[in-house]
């Protein structure tokens, strides 16, 4: 293995490989930062450029692009509350409040450093555990996927600020929205007034609307008000090294979580970042700061969504099964190069997996360097006055939504959800459960029904597999604990108000 790993690193003796790495990182950084475009689109765009290239050169560029694009989403999430991908939503929850408090520079610094560390740690795990953990991931059948989706959903209860009941309403709305479109088991159109809706609501325009466009309307409410000046990001000597170091626990836990969730085919970076965020909040000493500008929140989300990149690589390398939409595109790229990803990849083309390990590691400093250089410039965006930000966000969202599919439909969806998001925020209905339910809804329904079909209608599929049982118990606990806490708090409040009770 050491030998193969060395040969993986030796690929970097070729300047063309470096060029590919830097080019991939830059493109990924840009594509990730633009609301509406994401890593899978980026990789698909780069494929035509890899035709004539050596497989090693092209795979390095694609991996670098994937990792950098998964990071790029954090920039707009922090600065203008526009998570370009669903994996950056959790970053926006704390990143944008930090930005409003004049700490955009610090948030960007933390996001890029923790993203880098997330990749670094997870790539190490990938090297040693890709094969066994991918085999383990095969044990995820329909029952397990359903239970996993439920775990993700149950975390909503812990995340939603304010009223638990409103969180439940929001979750219901999200689940209902997720059922729009053609049914995956019977092919019947559901709640779809027009053919455009057959594919379901496009996620990214909904995200842009609920978060970014509704924020435009909030900026209008503010009008021209004195903004808190963002502290400029100084040289490395001035950084809060102690503060960064204190994040080590969160970053490590989130990286491991992100990696493991990334391995499960179909789970992916967004679920990883949601779960890591929820776990970070549960284990934090200052959970009350989550959602209001917690550095830990940014670190958890970013470390996890980048660690999921290595995670998604594991089943690709070990089994030839893509762990995420982006790796599915990569399989296509490899096959065009005449390389068949699959169980024989390690013995037949060892240079490919080991080059991927090497490029994940070597890519980290390159990506962090680009990110830090960018962070200094981007931090100034936070100082632009409110009305100008509003106009810029509205314009970029418009163009980004159009570019995401090349049709007007996502633009209309985004606008409608922008206004809806504003109204919901005014009634203090939390938005996070809507997004989470929309992301998880289809996975939940499809697998619930698939589970019942494979078990011939018997519910025992949900309690005979230990994995399903463990996941379901986790979900029930996560649902029940906040509710118990809520009731206890109520009782205590009632007692305080009325001593006769």
């Amino acid at each position, binding site marked *: 293995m050491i030998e193969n790993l060395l040969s993986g690193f030796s690929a970097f003796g070729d300047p063309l490989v470096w060029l590919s790495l830097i080019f991939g990182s830059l493109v990924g950084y840009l594509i990730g930062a633009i609301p509406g475009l994401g890593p899978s689109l980026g990789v698909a765009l780069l494929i035509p450029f890899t035709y004539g290239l050596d497989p090693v050169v092209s795979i390095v560029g694609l991996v670098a692009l994937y990792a950098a694009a998964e990071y790029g989403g954090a920039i707009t999430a922090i600065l203008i509350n526009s998570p370009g991908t669903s994996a950056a939503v959790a970053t926006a929850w704390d990143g944008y409040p930090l930005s409003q408090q004049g700490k955009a520079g610090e948030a960007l610094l933390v996001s890029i450093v923790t993203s880098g560390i997330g990749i670094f740690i997870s790539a190490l795990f990938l090297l040693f555990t890709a094969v066994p953990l991918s085999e383990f991931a095969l044990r995820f059948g329909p029952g397990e996927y359903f239970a996993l989706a439920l775990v993700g959903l149950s975390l909503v209860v812990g995340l939603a600020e304010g009223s638990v009941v409103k969180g439940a309403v929001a979750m219901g709305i999200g689940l209902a929205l997720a059922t729009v479109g053609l049914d995956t088991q019977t092919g019947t159109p*559901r709640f779809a007034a027009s053919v455009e809706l057959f594919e379901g609501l496009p996620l990214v325009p909904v995200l842009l609307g609920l978060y970014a466009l509704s924020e435009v309307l909030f900026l*209008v409410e503010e*009008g021209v008000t004195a903004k808190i000046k963002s502290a400029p990001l100084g040289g490395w000597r001035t950084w809060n090294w102690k503060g960064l170091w204190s994040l080590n626990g969160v970053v490590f836990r989130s990286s491991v979580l992100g990696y493991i969730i990334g391995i499960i085919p179909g789970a992916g970076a967004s679920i990883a970042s949601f779960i890591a965020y929820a776990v970070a909040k549960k284990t934090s000493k200052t959970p009350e700061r989550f959602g209001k500008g917690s550095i830990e929140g940014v670190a958890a989300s970013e470390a996890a969504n980048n660690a999921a990149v290595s995670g998604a690589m594991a089943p690709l390398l070990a089994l030839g099964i893509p762990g995420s939409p982006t790796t599915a595109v990569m399989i296509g790229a490899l096959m065009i190069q005449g390389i068949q990803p699959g169980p024989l990849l390690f013995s037949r083309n060892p240079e490919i997996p080991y080059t991927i390990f090497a490029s994940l590691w070597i890519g980290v400093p390159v990506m962090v360097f680009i990110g830090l250089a960018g962070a200094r410039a981007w931090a100034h965006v936070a100082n632009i*006055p409110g009305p100008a930000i509003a106009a810029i966000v509205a*314009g970029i969202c418009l163009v980004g939504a159009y570019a995401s599919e090349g049709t007007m439909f996502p633009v209309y969806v985004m606008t409608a959800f922008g206004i809806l998001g504003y109204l919901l925020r005014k009634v203090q*209905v939390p938005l996070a459960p809507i997004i989470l339910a929309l992301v998880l809804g289809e996975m939940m329904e499809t697998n619930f029904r698939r589970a019942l079909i494979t078990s011939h209608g018997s519910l025992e599929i949900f309690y005979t597999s230990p994995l399903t049982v463990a996941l379901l118990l986790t979900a029930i606990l996560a649902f029940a604990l906040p509710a118990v806490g809520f009731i206890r708090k109520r009782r205590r409040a009632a007692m305080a108000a009325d001593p006769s009770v």
Partner: protein
Amino acid sequence: MENEALNKGEEPVQGYVRIPLSILEIATGLIVLAILSWYVVEAYHLPKPFNSTDVGAGGFPLLVAFGTGIATVSMIGLAVARHMGKMGKADSRWRRPLFVLTVALLLVGQAVTFETLGVYLCTALFSAAIMVAAGERRILHVLGVSIGLVAFIYVVFALALNVVFP
């Protein structure tokens, strides 16, 4: 929206509307219930599954509607209880409602006219209009931002990514 408690002039901020949160929650709850009933009717009429062990296309939506219905009814119930004065009251403040409404209409406008005006004219016009509506009065700033935005879109989307716009 119901403008129950209008600006009573306690705050110097220009025009804002204050609505008791409980009223808004009841209104939202009723709207959600109305949409849910349409949803249930639609789900109910979905075809039965071919496979007898499948819950069918309508099964899961009905389950979702049931759960959401309960949550919505409890939200309305809690809001009514709060409105009757059992618990602490809260207000929802809608600041500068006219400007917000204007910008909301502008957002709809930019989406509707995007195809006819073309990307550059559309973003230039509407970004300027949104800035003015948001309270920016410095002409140079308004012009600068809208021109800068158009330039940015051209460089990133048209030049670098080769997106074909209307």
